[in-house]
């Protein structure tokens, strides 16, 4: 299908209206006003909100734009050294061929068009029952009605139950659950609450480097100070308390650190934090009086032997009241990742722990500006936290699909690490979890020189060249905050089907060897 590049958007946008009037009136086009002076616009780069200029969203940045352009050229029959563009940069499982969970789609279809409930053989009974329960919980028994801004009560209750089960009985109050438009909506909302102050009192937010660009984009937009803490590449991208301490100490000289963001399992690094590490982080946050934000959207995506997902909340509560009653925490989840891969529905939730009551009222007010999160996404989240149980008609199919998806991901994680580590000049940490590999590539000096001449970061130059020569679109690490001269990092999803992934990885290998030779 055709997509538009940003440059295409600009074509004639200003002229469309005057060409309309000119053609209607049979007059020649006039760009200028009658006295010949072109009036300056109200909204220009100079008058625009300055914080917007700081926003760069790497995941859909220049390299992706170029990929879209190339797709268009291919569809127009222009010859390229490749037959398709592979957008191996974004965590979109279903775009890469992952199948949705049948039960979820059945229930959603039934909820959308309840007439289907009357059909005898098309849908299993448990799907129908779920649809009925969900519809009952919606205004007017319809997915099309607004829900309360915080989300449908029935769903929030199910989310709370899920969290309690997951965390071995640690209580969860549904009143602390907010259903959001994907996890990013929740994250941005909490950040909005946290950002305040001027000058040296301006809120600083600690984010891990490498990081997922949503955070830096959100902080830029809010005018918050970004405080980088580096993950330890040599220890499989673990968090290092000494590094956290260094970062916060340095930050206190020019801002007021108020929050610490963690992504676990990590994006793009895939690291799964150990329980001890999480405890250390909680102690650190308590000591430094930081609000903890735990992005846990990949909580089911854990592959490596010996790795286990530990929720921040569970660890917090197991550390006893000194921490569990004081440390402020928001944790985030979504329908976009794990085994569901339902990005398009924008389903998500956040749980807020130990939030000041007055602030919570403000939070409730803030979310009401969005009116409510998409109701199909809320319904989907309900199914995710309350899937078919053993004995139910859909259980076997569900568990088979879930297992197949997660084990395929585990296999692909291993395969990626294996193949990439056979390439001289590429080293790749084990992909413990999440959906990406984050290999380190050595970039020859000559290539670095050419990159800088072109005004590009070396890893951007590497990725652009790879895109032009192979059609493979990866995101360079510089979009993720890492900056080193002779080494770059690239982000590649592990999502394509295994045979396609194998081809992809070998093409990357071939490209790297060619590139290294060419610029040696």
């Amino acid at each position, binding site marked *: 299908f055709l*997509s538009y590049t940003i440059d295409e958007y600009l074509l004639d946008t200003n002229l469309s209206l*005057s060409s309309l009037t000119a053609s209607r009136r049979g007059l020649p086009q006039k760009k200028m006003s009658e006295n010949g002076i072109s009036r300056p616009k109200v909204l*220009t780069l100079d008058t625009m909100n300055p914080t917007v200029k700081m926003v760069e969203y790497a995941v859909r940045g220049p390299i992706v734009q170029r990929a879209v352009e190339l797709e268009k050229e291919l569809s127009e029959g222009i010859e390229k050294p490749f037959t398709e563009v592979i957008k191996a940069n974004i965590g979109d499982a*279903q775009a890469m061929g992952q199948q949705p969970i049948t039960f979820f789609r059945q229930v959603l279809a039934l909820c959308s068009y309840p007439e289907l409930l009357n059909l005898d053989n098309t849908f299993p009974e448990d799907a129908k029952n779920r649809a009925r329960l969900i519809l009952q919980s919606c205004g007017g028994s319809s997915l099309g009605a607004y829900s309360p801004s915080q989300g449908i009560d029935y769903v929030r209750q199910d989310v709370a139950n899920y969290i309690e089960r997951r965390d071995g009985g640690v209580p969860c109050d549904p009143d602390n659950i907010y259903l959001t438009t994907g996890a990013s909506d929740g994250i941005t909302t909490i950040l909005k609450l946290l950002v305040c102050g001027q000058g040296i009192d301006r809120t600083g937010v600690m984010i891990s480097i490498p990081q997922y660009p949503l955070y830096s984009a959100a902080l830029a937009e809010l005018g918050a100070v970004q405080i980088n803490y580096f993950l330890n590449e040599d220890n499989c991208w673990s968090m290092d308390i000494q590094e956290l301490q260094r970062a916060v100490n340095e930050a206190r000289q020019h801002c007021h650190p108020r929050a610490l963001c963690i992504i676990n399992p990590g994006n793009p690094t895939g690291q799964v934090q150990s329980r001890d590490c999480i405890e250390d982080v909680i102690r650190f946050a308590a000591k430094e009086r930081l609000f903890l934000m735990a992005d846990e959207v990949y909580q089911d995506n854990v592959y490596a032997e010996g790795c286990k997902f530990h929720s921040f909340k569970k660890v917090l509560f197991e550390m006893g009241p000194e921490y569990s009653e004081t440390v402020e925490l928001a944790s985030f989840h979504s329908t976009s990742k794990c085994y569901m891969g339902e990005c398009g529905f924008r389903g998500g939730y956040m749980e807020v722990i130990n939030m000041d009551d007055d602030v919570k009222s403000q939070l409730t007010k803030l979310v009401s500006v969005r009116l409510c*999160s998409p109701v199909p996404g809320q319904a989907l989240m309900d199914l995710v936290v309350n899937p078919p149980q053993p004995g139910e008609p859909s259980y076997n199919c569900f568990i088979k699909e879930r297992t197949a998806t997660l084990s395929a991901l585990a296999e692909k994680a291993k395969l990626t690490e294996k193949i990439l580590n056979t390439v001289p000049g590429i080293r790749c940490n084990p992909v413990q979890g999440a959906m990406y590999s984050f290999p380190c590539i050595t970039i020859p000096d000559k290539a670095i020189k050419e990159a800088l001449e072109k005004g590009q970061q070396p890893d951007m130059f590497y990725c652009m060249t790879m895109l032009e020569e192979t059609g493979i679109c990866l995101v360079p690490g510089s979009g993720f905050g890492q900056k080193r001269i002779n080494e770059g990092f690239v982000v590649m999803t592990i999502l394509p089907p295994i045979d396609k992934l194998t081809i992809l990885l070998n093409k990357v290998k071939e490209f790297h060897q060619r590139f290294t030779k060419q610029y040696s």
Partner: protein
Amino acid sequence: MTKLHCIFMQGVKKPFREVIDVAWGDAQGAGIKPLTFVRQVLAACLYPQLLDSNRLPTDVKQKARGLLSECHGGSMGSYTDLPGIPQVAREISEYIARRDGGDPPKTGNIFISPGSQWALQNILNLLVHGHGEVRSGVLTPIPCHVTTIESLHSLGGVSVPYYLSEEHGWELQMEELNRALEYAKQVCAPVALYVVNPGNPPGHVQSKKSIQDVIRFALEKRLFLLVDEVYQDCVYADNVEFVSYKKVLAEMGPPFSDTVELASFHSASKGFLGEAGLRGGYVELVNMDPDVIKYACTIFSKDTAPTPGQIALSVLANPPRLGDPSYPLYEMETQQMQTMIKANVRRVHEVLDSLPGISCQPVEGGAFAFPRVDLPPKALQKAKEMGMEPDTFYCLRLLEESGAFITPGCEYGQKEGTYHIRFCIRSPGDVIEDFLGRLVTFHTQFMKEFS
């Protein structure tokens, strides 16, 4: 909004069987059924196995297949690129061209978002300087629904009210706009003018002349026009027609047509679709600086509309046409809805006209009636004693005594010393009839009690 509901939920004596909720502009929440075609297409997209059965009409299947073929991986579960599912963006563009005449806008000027308020906040984000000594201001109508104002405030912007003229059918008057702007300049840097047409809560539909006046004002005073047109399909009065700001702008020719910057918002939440829960909205940008559009792309790309919402927009923009298998049903459902709501409006006016102490300007369009209630001094006194606004007091009593849930005018802003109530007329006819019955009984008693 929730204040009243909270008070109610704390446990109140109930001389009625159930609460009747006509407080929100939520047609489906009130019991109006969704359009069959939308839901069939949505179901087919969600569970494509349905495409193989003969349960669904051919045009439903065709539309679903078309939409899915343009989704990554052929699935609704994937992220969509910035313009949304390409077919949807094209359909919106063609819809605008059909509505306004002229060439279809470039899809690069159309941004799809999870509801129109989200798009509005993104545009406000581009316009508003929220920190520093001088903050940006936006002229906003009084009365006005709360969401936009809160959205503006959350960005650090200043809302500067201009009063709509109740005595003139809630008309927008230029002297008042001028006054508001002069005042605005003292407290902020005014950058935009926000207009809701058809209105919310007052149900006025702007005349073409009024729109021309506003456009001239925007050009002269250098204001960005933010036009909320989500109720464009909700027009009831016989001699009244909705005309879009964009169309009027184009017809005015240069210098207006190629200078005035305009953002026009629409949504699948209102009108015949009423799919508020699906969160599908869009903004069309006219005459926006191309360099700024680049930044708009970045902001909008962070949160594209959920795919179910995009499907709703697709039907909004490109509904079944004469000759399509689904057309007769679609036509019947929409006609029935329109007939019912027009009847609601008639009944509302009939009843309110007969009640002393309540008066209502003509509800020409929109989703609400916003009548004025002339509260007697004793009622004002009682409200004061209870520490609440007089119209809140009225609404609370209404809820307690008759179980009818509506909202007070103070939540939208109103001229000092006047009191209003707002209730939704886009509800099933029997619900409106029930509500009006309860209102009449309550109002008569209330006025007697406080005479």
